């Protein structure tokens, strides 16, 4: 037996930290939560109130814009129709709203952090182990602090999702910028380009294919996390799976599972098509089939 005396009460300290945060910054958290919730509720309402066919038309338009392929567009539209035919349209729209917000937040936070890592070796030395930890920690663990800070509901679900899903976009932004050809950067500097001109004119455009791949991975991870987050009160498709498990209703679980996969496929295809297009514009420059 390992001697008890050597136990470090880490768990207790973490609890104390969370308690302290709640006591001292409770108001700030609440204000933030309210703001997030307002946006989410508005988006969810919008998606659920919009006629189903209009949602499909919009998704089809995005799919076509991304892929320039009628086949892909048709396939993805059919996937959305299938979700409706499973009787899960409304739940899927709830999940979609959560996912869009979580992914959007991940990208808004992730790209600047990734840029910062590429610029500063110090920040990178701190972030890399942190990101490793974020990704290896079982996703359930994120639910607990989110729960304690924000209680049950959608806001903690989104935050847990952001923590889980942000690492790929952060890592790939960093990687993409670091991979930019050194001579191209030197050329840019030698003409007297400022930091901002180099970042916007050279580094970000050349890192774009990697950043797009990161956004795609982040989207996929946020779909999977949104499902898990239903355990702390995120509604939508995840909830269906959860109640399926609780009631031993295999059929319901399978239906919801299929709907989740279809949703994931739709987003993956769209994301990948955008990724490919950004690659085309950066390597051969010939975008838009020109």
């Amino acid at each position: 037996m390992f001697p008890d005396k050597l136990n470090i009460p880490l768990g207790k300290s973490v609890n104390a930290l969370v308690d302290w945060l709640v006591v001292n910054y409770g108001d700030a958290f609440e204000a933030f939560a309210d703001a997030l919730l307002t946006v989410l509720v508005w988006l969810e309402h919008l998606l659920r109130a919009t006629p189903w066919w209009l949602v499909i038309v919009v998704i089809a338009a995005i799919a076509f814009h991304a892929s320039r392929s009628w086949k892909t567009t048709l396939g993805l539209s059919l996937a959305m129709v299938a979700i409706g035919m499973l009787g899960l349209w409304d739940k899927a729209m709830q999940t979609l709203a959560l996912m869009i917000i979580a992914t959007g937040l991940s990208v808004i936070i992730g790209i600047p952090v990734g840029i910062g890592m590429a610029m500063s070796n110090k920040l990178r030395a701190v972030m890399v182990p942190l990101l490793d930890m974020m990704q290896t920690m079982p996703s359930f663990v994120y639910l607990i602090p989110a729960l304690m800070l924000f209680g049950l509901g959608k806001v903690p679900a989104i935050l847990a999702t952001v923590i889980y899903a942000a690492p790929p976009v952060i890592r790939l932004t960093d990687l993409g910028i670091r991979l930019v050809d050194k001579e191209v950067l030197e050329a840019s500097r030698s003409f007297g380009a400022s930091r901002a001109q180099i970042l916007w004119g050279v580094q970000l455009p050349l890192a774009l294919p990697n950043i797009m791949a990161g956004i795609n991975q982040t989207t996929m991870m946020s779909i999977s996390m949104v499902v898990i987050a239903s355990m702390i009160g995120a509604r939508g498709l995840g909830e269906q799976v959860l109640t399926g498990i609780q009631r031993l209703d295999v059929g319901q679980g399978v239906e919801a599972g299929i709907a989740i996969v279809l949703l994931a496929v739709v987003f993956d295809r769209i994301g990948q098509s955008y990724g490919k297009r950004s690659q085309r514009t950066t390597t051969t420059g010939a975008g838009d089939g020109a």
Partner: protein
Amino acid sequence: MSYIEIKNIYKIFGPHPQKALTMAQNGENKDDILAKTGHTVGLQNVSLSIDQGETFVVMGLSGSGKSTLIRHLNRLIDPTAGEILFGGENILQMTTPRLNAFRRAKLGMVFQRFGLLPHRSVIENVAYGLKIQKTDKAERLKSARTWIERVGLAGYEDSFPDQLSGGMQQRVGLARALTTNPEVLLMDEAFSALDPLIRSDMQDELMKLQSELHKTIIFITHDLDEALKLGDRIAILKDGALMQVGRPEEIIMNPADDYVRAFTRDVNRSRVLRAKTLMQPTSTGNDTPANTTGWPEVDANMRLEDILPIAIACPDGISVVNRDHQKIGTLSKDQIIAALAA
């Protein structure tokens, strides 16, 4: 004072350069310093003066510090010690905005692997320097078009770099560097990645442009023939230290040491040596010895390879004349043969 003055530059690569710098300043050599401190000496006590309008070539083996040296001139690399003056101004004391303004106004650079922006078209690449200067769009595209034409790429404005051959890409690189109308052109092995014929074309092109533009060109190469063809003066670097600086024929005729001699061994001397370097100067200038009458006259700047056929036809001797057709010296067949055989 020359236009560009490089004074006692040292560059030590590594996190704690001070100790290695002291050792380098005490004259210890690069390998010892690396073994004792783990720091690489990039440049060791380099001082150079470069005049406005000259083509100054820097030569040396791989790793001798050529790229490091040229990158000091636009401060892509900062020295560990020393001074760099442009027209009397110490560029090492410039703040970042001042440095950027200086780079925009005065410097253009051409890179070995071209360094073109892969996501921008030829014309956007050529206009890049002006875009950085926030010149308005119509104007910068107009200048870019002029230079694209000038380097022989008309019709390729909307192509992307990866659709062009190496030689064409480097023409884009050259046009890009010239579009901002810089006083100084920095060229780091600009033609080394090109195959021999294209390379020779580009050298001719550069010489043609230079004869009209009179830029100050710093040209890096590890190829002696290229150095001799382009350079008004040549500097030779070894392990970060300057071994010799001089006009091409000085380097060929009087190599400073074995390292320089090794460089010059295989060179085609008849292409480098000129009449004025070899001639026996006429001692008093105005009274020409009578026995030179009937000798053919050659220009002082004529190369040996062109003089050779004349010398063979006239075994007695040749008169060397300056631009005003005054006789300034004589050449004998034996002198020519001795110079070629040395």
